[in-house]
C-alpha cells in the first residue's frame, strides 16, 4: 500500500518560470539528488490520491514520480 508523503524540495526556477526539482529532503533528514527529470505533465496520482504537475525523475537510478500539488510537493512512498 502506497502512502502520500509530503516532502521538502530544492527547486531551480528558470528565467522563463519553469521549475526543476533538484533535491528531495526526506522525512528522516536524508537528501536525494534528482539525477534527471524525464517528463513533466499534469497527472493524477491514483495510488495515493491527488493531482498536480507530475515530474518523472530519476533518483539513484530509479524512476520516481514527484508531484507538485497546489503549493506542496509529494511522492508516492511505500508504507
Amino acid at each position, binding site marked *: 500500500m502506497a502512502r502520500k508523503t509530503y516532502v521538502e524540495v530544492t527547486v531551480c526556477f528558470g528565467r522563463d518560470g519553469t521549475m526543476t526539482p533538484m533535491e528531495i529532503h526526506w522525512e528522516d533528514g536524508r537528501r536525494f539528488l534528482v539525477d534527471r527529470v524525464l517528463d513533466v505533465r499534469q497527472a*493524477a496520482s491514483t495510488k495515493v*490520491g*491527488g*493531482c498536480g504537475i507530475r515530474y518523472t525523475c530519476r533518483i539513484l537510478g530509479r524512476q520516481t514520480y514527484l508531484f507538485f500539488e497546489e503549493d506542496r510537493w509529494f511522492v508516492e512512498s511505500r508504507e
Partner: protein
Amino acid sequence: MDEKWDRISPCGDRVILHVDLNNFYASVECLHHPQLRDKPVAVGGDSQARHGIVLAKNELAKSCGVKTGEAIWQALEKCPPLVVVPPHFQQYLRFSRMARNIYLDYTDQMEPFGIDECWLDITGTLSAEKQGNRIAAGEAIAHQIRRRVREEMGVTVSVGVSFNKIFAKLGSDLKKPDAVTVISADNFRQQIWSLPVRELLYVGPATGRKLSGLGVNTIGDLATLSPQLLHSQLGKWGDMLWRYANGYDRSPVTRVGEESVIKSVGNSITAYRDLENEEDVRMILCVLCESVASRMRSHGLMGGTLSLSVRDNRLYSFERQMVLQRNTWSAEEMMRYSFQLFCRHWKWERPIRSLGVRMSELCGSDAPDQICLFTDYRQLQRQESIEKTVEQLRRRFGPHCIDRAVVLQDRRLTGAGSERNRQLSRSPWDRNAG
C-alpha cells in the same frame, strides 16, 4: 406554433459536446482517499446544522439505491455500510477549474452548466478536412477529453456529442461513467425517441405529469404530437419542448468572456434550529440583508424589487415580493422592507426552517433615480454613509469587527463572531447572480 418547422429537417451543421464530470464531489473525495474507492461513499452536509442531505454519491452507493438530495439517515437505512464524508468545496472548485482548462484547449465556446457540466461548441475549431465528417471528428475530440480528464485529474467524464445542446446533454446522461455517446442528425430518431420524455432537459416532474396526461410518455411521442395541441396545453413552453424533441434547438454555446448579466442577488439560510418568533426572524433577516447589500455594493448594483422566501419546518415554502419606492443597496432598507413583507404574509402557524432574501430589477448604482418629495434624502445619505464605513471597517479589520446588536442574541444562529465570511455564498435560487 409556426408550421414552417414541419417542413424543415434538423440542421446538423454544428458539433456540440456536453461534458459531465461523473459523480463529481464523490469522485474527488474517492481520488483523495484511495481507501474509500471500494466502498459506497456519499458526500453529505452537516446533519447538526440541518444540512444533512446527500450532495453526491459514488457508483457503489448508487447501486444501493442512495439518491442525491435525500436525507443522510434515509441513505444510511438503504445502505448501512455507506461512508459519509463532509464536502470540500474549495477542492471541487479547483477540479472544476482544471477540467475547464482542458476544455479550453479545444474551443473558446464553453458554457458551464453548474460546477460539473459544460457545453462546448467545437464546430469552428475543426480543420477544413474534418468539416466533411464533423460528428466523427467531434467524437474523436470527446475521447481525447475523456482520456485527458482521467489521466490528468484522476476522475471521469461522460461526453455527449451531437448537433445541438439538448441532444448533447441527453447523450452525456445515456452512458456513464467514462464514456462517449454520439447522437447525430441522421440517427437521433432511432436512438432517443424511445426514451422516457423525462430524460429530455427541462422536462421536470410537473411537466412530465402534464405530458403524461396527454398520452406523451416518450420523446418520440412528444416529437410526433401536434404542436398546436402542445401549445394549447403548455403555451410557449410546449413549442420549445416540441422543437427540442425534433432536434430544432439552435441555442448557441456562450463564448468565454461573454459574461451573463446579473439579474438578481440573493442569499438564503437554513437555520440550525427552527425560528420560533419575530426576534429570530429579525436576526436572520439582518444577516441575509447585510450579505446581499455587501454583494450588491461590490458589483456596483442597486435593486428595485425585494423578494422574501420562507420555508417552514414541514418544508412548505412560499415567496413574496415587493416593488420598492426607490432603488437601493442599503441593508437597513432591505431589512425594514423584508420584515414588513414577512409580517404581512406569515401567520405563524408553524415554526420556520429557512429564510431567503433576493433583490432583483437591478441597475447600476449611478443610474438616475426619480426622487420623491416626501422622502428625507439627507437621512438616507447618512445611512448609506454609515453602511459604507462599516463595510470598510470589516474589510480592514475582519468581518466581525463590528456587528449589529441584534445578531448577538444568538451567535450560533447568526454566525456572529465565527469565522464565517460576512458575504454568504449564493443561494440555489439565485438566478444569474453574481
